[in-house]
C-alpha cells in the first residue's frame, strides 16, 4: 500500500474516532434548556416533540390551556408529530405586559441526506404567559394538537 493510501486510511480512521468521541462526550454535557426564560421553555417544548415525550410537553402548557384540553387526546395527537430530524433554535424573544413571544426556528437539513438539495428553515411564533412556577405556553408551535375541547 502506498503512502497516499495509508494517509487516506489514517485520516478516515481519525475522523471516525473524532466523530464518535465527540458524540459520546457531548452526550452528557449538552446543557438542558433554561426553563426560567421564555426561549428555554420553547426549546424544551420543541425537544419534547423530537423525543415524542408528550407528558413533558403537556407540563409546559399554561394551566388555562390544560384546563380547556383533554390530556389523553393531546398525548395521542402529540405522538403523531414528526419533528425528530430538525435543528432547533430560538430568536426574537419579546416580553411584554401580556406575557412573552418567542420565534422558534426549525431547520430541515437537505431532505435527501448527503446528496439532497439545500436546507430550509421555517419560523413559528410561540406565545407564553408567566405563571407561579415559571413561563408556560399558551400558543404552542403546533397549535393543532390543542383543537379538541375537554369532554
Amino acid at each position, binding site marked *: 500500500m502506498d503512502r497516499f493510501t495509508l494517509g*487516506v486510511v489514517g485520516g*478516515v480512521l481519525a475522523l471516525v474516532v473524532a466523530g464518535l468521541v465527540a*458524540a459520546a462526550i457531548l*452526550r452528557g454535557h*449538552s446543557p438542558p434548556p433554561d426553563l426560567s426564560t421564555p426561549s428555554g421553555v420553547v426549546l424544551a417544548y420543541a425537544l419534547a416533540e423530537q423525543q415524542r415525550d408528550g407528558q413533558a410537553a403537556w407540563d409546559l402548557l399554561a394551566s388555562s390551556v390544560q384546563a380547556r384540553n383533554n390530556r389523553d387526546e393531546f398525548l395521542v395527537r402529540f405522538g403523531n408529530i414528526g419533528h425528530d430530524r430538525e435543528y432547533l433554535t430560538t430568536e426574537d424573544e419579546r416580553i411584554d405586559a401580556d406575557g412573552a413571544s418567542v420565534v422558534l426556528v426549525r431547520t430541515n437539513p437537505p431532505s435527501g441526506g*448527503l446528496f439532497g438539495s439545500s436546507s430550509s428553515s421555517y419560523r413559528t411564533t410561540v406565545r407564553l404567559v408567566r405563571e407561579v412556577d415559571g413561563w408556560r405556553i399558551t400558543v404552542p408551535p403546533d397549535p393543532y394538537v390543542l383543537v379538541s375541547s375537554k369532554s
Partner: protein
Amino acid sequence: MTTIRRIYAYLLAFAGLAMVSTAAANLGQLLLDVVLQSPVATTERYVRDTASLWGATALVGLPVWLLHWLWIQRTARGDPSERSSTLRRLYLYALLGSASLVIGFSTREVLLRLGDALVGIAGLGITPDLTVRPLPFTLVAGVVWLTHWRVAAADRFQVGEEGGSATLRRWYVYGAALIGLMVLLNGARALVEVLWQIAVPAGASAGREIAPPVADTLVGLGIWLVHWVVLPRRLPEAAQRDDGVSVLRSVYLFVVLAVCVIGTLLGASQLLYYAMGRLLGVDRPGGIGGDLLQAAAGPASVLIVYGAAWAYQRDALRRQAVAFSEAPRQAGIRRLYTYVIVLVALGVLATGVAGLLWTLGDVLFAPGAAVGDFWRERVALYATLAIVGLPVWLLHWRPRPGSAAEAGALARRLYIYLSLIAAMLTVVGAVAGVVYRLLGLALGGTFAQDVATDLAHAVALASVAALVAIYHWRVLRADARVAASVRVAAASAAAASVVIVEISAQDADGLGRALAALRATGVEVRILQPNQAT
C-alpha cells in the same frame, strides 16, 4: 430442415405442448376436486364448464404437438445436423425452464397450504382438497421436464455439444441455479427472522409468518441443488471440463458472490448503526425504537444467511480455481466483480466520511445543530458507513496493479474513470452550492442556521470529492506509467533477442504457470535469482 421451417415446427410444437400440459394439469385438478368433494366442485355446471374448456384445449393441442414433434423427431433421426441445431436446443431448454418455473410455483403453493394447515391458520386444520389442488401442475410439469431433459441428454450423447448449444444449456442451468439460490436466500433470511422474533422475549408468536419462508426455502433449495449440484454431475466429462472454464459459470459465481457480499454488508451496517446509535444515546436510530434484540431480527437474519452464503461462495470459487486454470475471459469477469465491489465500497466510504465532516461542521458552526439527538444519530449512521466501507475497499482495491494486464484492464479503467467523473461532478455541484450561499450573504443575507448547514454540507462534499478525484488521478497516472514501461520493454525486446524481465505473481504456482506459458511459446527462459522469486 431450413431455418424458417425449423422455427415454424418448434414454435407449433411448443404451443401445442403448452396447451396439452396446461389442459392435463387443469383436468387433473378437476378430477381431484370431484374425488375429494371440494367445495369449488359442488355444482354440476362448474364441473361441466371446466371439463369442456380444458378437454377442448387438450383435444386441439394434442394433435398440433404430436404432428409437429413427430415430424421434428423423424427429421432428427435422419439428419444429425437437426439434432445439433441451436433452434432445437433453444426449444428444449426453453421448455425445461418453463417447466422448472411451474414446478417451483406449484410446489411452493402445496407447501404453503400444508404449512398453513399444520400451524392451524384460522382453525381450518388439514384440508386435503385445498392442499393438493396445485399438485397436478407439479406432476405434469415434472413429466414434461423429465422427458425433455432425457431428449436433450440423448442429443448430447449422439451428436455432442458445441458452441451455441452448450451455451444455451449453461444459460438454462446457471439461470435456474441463480433463481433457485435467490429464492433460497430470501426464504432462509425470512425464516431466520421469524425464528429470531419467536425466540426473543416478548417476540411474535409462531403462526402464519412461518409457512411462506419455509416454502420458499425448500423450493429454492430444491431448484438450486438440482441445477448447481445434481445436473452438472450427470454431464459427460468433456462437458464438465468445458463448463469449468465457461464465462457463464464465472458470471454466475461472481454475481452470486456480489449479492452475498452486498447483503452481508447491508445487514452488518444496519446492525452496527442500531447498536452505535443506542450507545450514543439515540432512542430511535433510523426510526427503530423499542427492544434492540427485536429490532435486530431483520438485519441479523440478513447478516447470518448472506454471510453463510458468502463463505460458501468463496469456497466454491476457491474450488473452481483449484480445478480449472482461469481463462482470459474468466479473468475479465473476476476483475469486473472486484471493481464493482471496490466502486460500491468507495461510494459507501466517501458518503460516510463526507457525512461525518458535514455533521461535525454543523455542530461547530450551525446554531442549534447540537441540540437534541439528531446529530448523534447522524454521527452513528455516517460512522457506520465509513467503518463498513473502509475495510471492504481496502480488501479489494490494489493501488498498484499486479501486472501490466491489470493496469490496462477495462474493469479497472472503468472504475477509475467512473470514480473520477462522479467525484468531479460532486465537486462542481458542491462548489456551486458554496458560491450560491456566499453570494446570498454578500448581497445582504443573514448568516442563519440554514446557511450554516448548507455551507458545511457543500464544503464537506467538495473536500471529500476532491480527495477522491486527486487520489484516482494519481492512480491513473501511475497505471499509465506501468503501461508505458511495458511498451518500452516490448520495443527493447523487439530490438534485442535477449532481454532481462522481471516477473512477479501472487504465489509460486502462479509464477510457475507464467514461466511454463512463456516456455510453451518456444522462447528460452533462464531464472537468474531463484531464491528471490515472489
